[in-house]
């Protein structure tokens, strides 16, 4: 009796495994669906508080607000990683245009001088001040609380807690918003 039960269990297990394998997304015959599209990285740990109420002339839509928070947070993660590890290969994931060139230039010069910059990010207060009428560009003001460390090799030559203000331009890219300009303003 025990043997019969075991046999039935094994046969059922094989059947279930077969069905699962057939339905798996690695099947080349499956047509592409929206679910199969690559999902955007949203694993950034950088905290961003967003206020879209001052934006003119267009009101910021809920979906855009979520996208801006996700993509701005991601951009800071990308920048922090690039400046700490002196790697420019992932900059395009969060930056475009002049901001991308500037950041890549900074990484290049850090590499040349043997320097690194480490940011410990304590969060951003992001305010949309301009949202273009056709919805493809946004100007934002960011107040960021950061700990900035400058390292020569592994030796820390400067470590400061700062509250920095930035004016930011973000534009719609192929599948996300990207930072086109990140310009720090003098501290108040």
């Amino acid at each position, binding site marked *: 009796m025990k043997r019969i039960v075991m046999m039935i269990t094994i046969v059922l297990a094989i059947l279930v495994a077969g069905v699962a394998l057939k339905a798996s997304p690695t099947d080349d015959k499956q047509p592409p669906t929206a679910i199969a599209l690559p999902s955007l990285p949203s694993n950034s740990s950088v905290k961003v508080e967003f206020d879209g109420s001052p934006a003119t*002339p267009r009101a910021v839509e809920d979906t855009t607000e979520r996208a801006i928070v996700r993509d701005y947070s991601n951009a800071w993660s990308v920048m922090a990683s690039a400046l700490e590890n002196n790697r420019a290969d992932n900059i395009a994931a969060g930056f475009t245009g002049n901001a991308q060139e500037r950041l890549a230039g*900074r990484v290049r*010069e850090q590499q040349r001088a043997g320097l690194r910059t480490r940011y410990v990010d304590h969060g951003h207060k992001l305010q949309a001040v301009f949202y273009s*009428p056709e919805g493809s*560009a946004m100007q934002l003001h960011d107040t960021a609380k950061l700990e900035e460390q400058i390292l020569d090799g592994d030796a820390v030559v*400067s470590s400061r807690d700062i509250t920095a203000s930035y004016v930011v331009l973000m534009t719609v890219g192929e599948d996300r918003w990207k930072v086109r300009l990140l*310009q720090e*303003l003098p*501290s108040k």
Partner: protein
Amino acid sequence: MMRRIGKLCFMICVSCAIAVGQDLKAPDHAVAGAALKLETSGSGDATLYLLGPGSAIKRSVKLGEPVELKPEEVSGSGVYTAVLKSGGANVTRTFYVAPAAPSNLVFLARPSRVAVGQKDALSGVIFLFDANKNLSFAPADIHFELAVSGAAAAARSVAAHNGIAWTRFDSARREGAAQFVASLGETSVRRVVQLTASEPCNLRFRTAPAKDHNVVVETDPVRDCAGNPVPDGTIVTFIENDGKTRSTIDARIKRGVARAELPATPNATISAASGVVLGNEIRLGGGR
């Protein structure tokens, strides 16, 4: 014991003297893309670290002599951090490099194609940049102008705020390639916006006998309410209804007119429509 304490005190005093002796002074007002000097004080050798937007510099300097920074080393507007390291003591200073006066305009004109006579249909946004691609906050009046051949141009000036100026225009009543220009002094940027005819207006058609008991239906030249010819390819739908059956043909406008053949069913009614616009009606084998 006393000797050791004395030595320690001496070393602390020397360190303090070095720390107090070296200093770094940044300029009160620096502009992106303009050379600047950092003043140092003290004596001996030191290492200067300078990090800013797009730049990271490590340089040996002589204390007491100014450190000269080339225009390309401070081309980015933003806050720079300078660290002067000598012996065990570090001095950190920050300074702000402001953007220069605006000299480049980035112009977003949307959409690139729009129907005539639409309220606030066109938008133009200008971003003001200096020669080094920094967003410039200097006061500036941007002149926007929208002109299409054969019609009066619309123009207005808008003051830039936070490096941005924007406006909206109604689309002109005449179709064609509109020149949308934004200018600041001698600098101007031009975009072309294609103005197309709007919805058809006064859609009219006539009939004529054709072979095989058919009837040809053909519109007059299809125009919008401002008299602009509706673009070729626009669909005109002809509907024939004899009370029992209904025939529908979608005909594309070709060279300004839409044409189709329908069965010549006695006493059938033929009508035409394009988009939300209805045309006239013709009854076959009877009066109109």
